[in-house]
C-alpha cells in the first residue's frame, strides 16, 4: 500500500511538472500581456514534434534536440505575437481569445499535414530508460529528472523576476504599462520578448514530454492546455506560485484518480476546483479584484 501510494505520488508529480511548464508560460504571458493564449498548448505540441524531428533527421542525441526544438518553436511564437497578437491587445476579450483559437486550428492542422494525422514515435531513446528502485519497485530515472526540472524552472523564474533588472521591468510592466513606458522601456518589444519566452517554456515542456510519453500526437496540446487553464484558475490567474502549486496538486490528484477511481479521474479535479473557488473565488494566490 505504502509503495503504491509513494509511486502514485511520484507519477503525479512528474505529470504535474509538464502541466507546470505549460502553465508557467501561460501565466507569465497572461500576467504581462493580459492575453489568455489558447495556442499555448500548440506550442507544447510543436515543441514535441520539433524534438521528434531533430531526433529523427539530425541526430539521436536527445539533449541536443531539447536545446534546438524549443528555440525553433520560439520563432513561431515571435511571428504570432509580432504580426498578429500585437494588433488585438486593444480589442475586446472575445476577439483576443478567438485569435489564439484560430492559431490552435491552424497549428493542429499544419501539424497533421507535416507529421501525419496519427501519432509518431521517436527513435530509440533507451539511454534514458534507466530505472531506480524506490521501496522495492522500479521507477524511471527520467521521471525523477522531470520532477527535478520543474522546481528548477520555478526557481530560475523566481530569481529572474525578483533579482534581475529585466525581471523587475517585467513585473513593473505587468502592474502598470504606462509606468514602464515612462521609464523608457519599449513596451511592445518587452511584450514580444515575454511572449517568446513563454513560448519557449511551453515548447520545452513538449520536448521534455517526448521520452516521457514515448509518442507524439496532435491532440497532446489540447489536453494539456485545459489542464493548464484549470491550474491557473485554482492557483489564481496570473500567479506563478499558484500555478506551480496548482500543477503539483492537479498532477497528484489525477494520478490518484486514474489509479483508484479510473472512471472519475477528472471528477476529482472538478471537486477540487469547485471547492477552492467556493472558498476563495479568486483562486489560491489570486488577488481579489
Amino acid at each position: 500500500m505504502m509503495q503504491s501510494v509513494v509511486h502514485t505520488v511520484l507519477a503525479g508529480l512528474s505529470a504535474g511538472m509538464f502541466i507546470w511548464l505549460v502553465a508557467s508560460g501561460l501565466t507569465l504571458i497572461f500576467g504581462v500581456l493580459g492575453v489568455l493564449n489558447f495556442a499555448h498548448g500548440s506550442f507544447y505540441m510543436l515543441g514535441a514534434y520539433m524534438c521528434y524531428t531533430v531526433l529523427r533527421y539530425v541526430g539521436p542525441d536527445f539533449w541536443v534536440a531539447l536545446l534546438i526544438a524549443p528555440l525553433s518553436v520560439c520563432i513561431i511564437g515571435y511571428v504570432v505575437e509580432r504580426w498578429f497578437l500585437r494588433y488585438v491587445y486593444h480589442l475586446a476579450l472575445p476577439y483576443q481569445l478567438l485569435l489564439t483559437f484560430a492559431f490552435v486550428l491552424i497549428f493542429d492542422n499544419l501539424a497533421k499535414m507535416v507529421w501525419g494525422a496519427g501519432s509518431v514515435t521517436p527513435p530509440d531513446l533507451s539511454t534514458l530508460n534507466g530505472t531506480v528502485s524506490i521501496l522495492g519497485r522500479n521507477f524511471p530515472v527520467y521521471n525523477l529528472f522531470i520532477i527535478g526540472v520543474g522546481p528548477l524552472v520555478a526557481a530560475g523564474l523566481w530569481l529572474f523576476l525578483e533579482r534581475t533588472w529585466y525581471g523587475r521591468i517585467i513585473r513593473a510592466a505587468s502592474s502598470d504599462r504606462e509606468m514602464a513606458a515612462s521609464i523608457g522601456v519599449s513596451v511592445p518589444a518587452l511584450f514580444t520578448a515575454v511572449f517568446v519566452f513563454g513560448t519557449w517554456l511551453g515548447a520545452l515542456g513538449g520536448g521534455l514530454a517526448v521520452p516521457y510519453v514515448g509518442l507524439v500526437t496532435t491532440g497532446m496540446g489540447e489536453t494539456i492546455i485545459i489542464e493548464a487553464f484549470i491550474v491557473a484558475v485554482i492557483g489564481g490567474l496570473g500567479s506563478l506560485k499558484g500555478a506551480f502549486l496548482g500543477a503539483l496538486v492537479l498532477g497528484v490528484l489525477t494520478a490518484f484518480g486514474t489509479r483508484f477511481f479510473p472512471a472519475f479521474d477528472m471528477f476529482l479535479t472538478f471537486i477540487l476546483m469547485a471547492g477552492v473557488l467556493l472558498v476563495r473565488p479568486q483562486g489560491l494566490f489570486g488577488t481579489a479584484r
Partner: protein
Amino acid sequence: MTESRIRYAVLAALLLALAAVPYVSGKFFVYLTMRVMLLGIFAVGFNLLLGQTGLLSFGHGAFYAAGAYGLGLFGAYVTPNPLLGVAVGIAAAAVVALLVGYLCVRHTEIYFAMLTLACGMMVFSFVWNARSITGGDDGFIGIMRAPVTLFGGLRLPIGKDSQFYYFVLAFFVLAVWVAHRIRISPFGLVLSGIRENARRTEYAGIPVRKYRLSVFVVSGAFAGLAGALEALLESNARPFMAHWTHSAEPVLVSLLGGLSSLFGPIVGGAFFIAMREIIQRYTENWMLGFGVVLLVVIMAFRGGIMGAVENLFGRRSAGAGR
C-alpha cells in the same frame, strides 16, 4: 409603421423560403439547413449571454451535450416520445447550467471564460469516462425518431429528414422568437444594463448575480434544445458535443455574425457551415482554411458580418442592445 411592415414582410418571406426548402432542394441541402438552424438556436441563446449581458462562456458545449444525452437516455429508458425527450433535454441542460453557473457567475471577463471552460471540460471527461451510462467515446447511439403525437390523436412521423425538417424548423422559429422577446423585455433591458455597467445596475436595485445566473441558465437551455435536436437528427449523442472546441463554435459564429443583433449569430452560423462545406470540398484541411479565415475576420472586420453590412448601408441595428 411602414418600416415594421417591411420587416414583417421580410420575415414572412424568409420563413416561407425556409419552409419550402425540402420541396425545392436536394437531401444534402435540407440536411445542411437543419445544421444551420441547430447552430442558430445554439448561438442565438448563447448571444443572450455574450451580446446582451457581456459574459463570454467557453463551456456551453456541456449544456449542448446535456441536452443530447438527456434526450437519448430518456428515449432509451422511459419513452421515445420526441417532444417529451426535447423537454427533458432542455431541463437537463438547464440543471447542468445552474450548477456550473452557480460557481461561475461571481466572476466576469476572462475569469468567467476560464471557469466555464474548465467546468465544460469536466462534463466532457465525465461523458467520456462514464461508459456504462453514456457509451464513452463511442457516443450514445441508436436514438430514434418516434412519431410526434399531438392533441392525443394526431400522429406526425418525423423519421425522414424531410419530415424531421419541420420539427426542427418549428423549434427554430420558437427559439428565435423567444430570444427576440427576451431582448426587448424588461429582463433583457436589465441584462444590457449589466453589460454596460454592472456596478450601476446594482445601484438600480438589481441583484446582478441572480440575473447573470438566470441568463446563464436560459442560454444553457437553448444549448440543450439544440443538442437534443442534434441527437434526433444524427441519432446519436457524442462526447465531442461537450468539448471546448465545440463550445467555441457559438462564440465564433456570434462574433462572425455580429453581437449586437438578433440575427447576427444566425447569419454567422450559416456562413460558418457554408464555409466548412466549401472548404471541405477542396481540401481535407478545413481547420487550416477556417483558422485563416478567422484570422482575417478578426484582424479586418471586427463588427462581424452584420456589422459590416450595417456599415455598408450606414444604419444602426434596429434591435435592442448597443
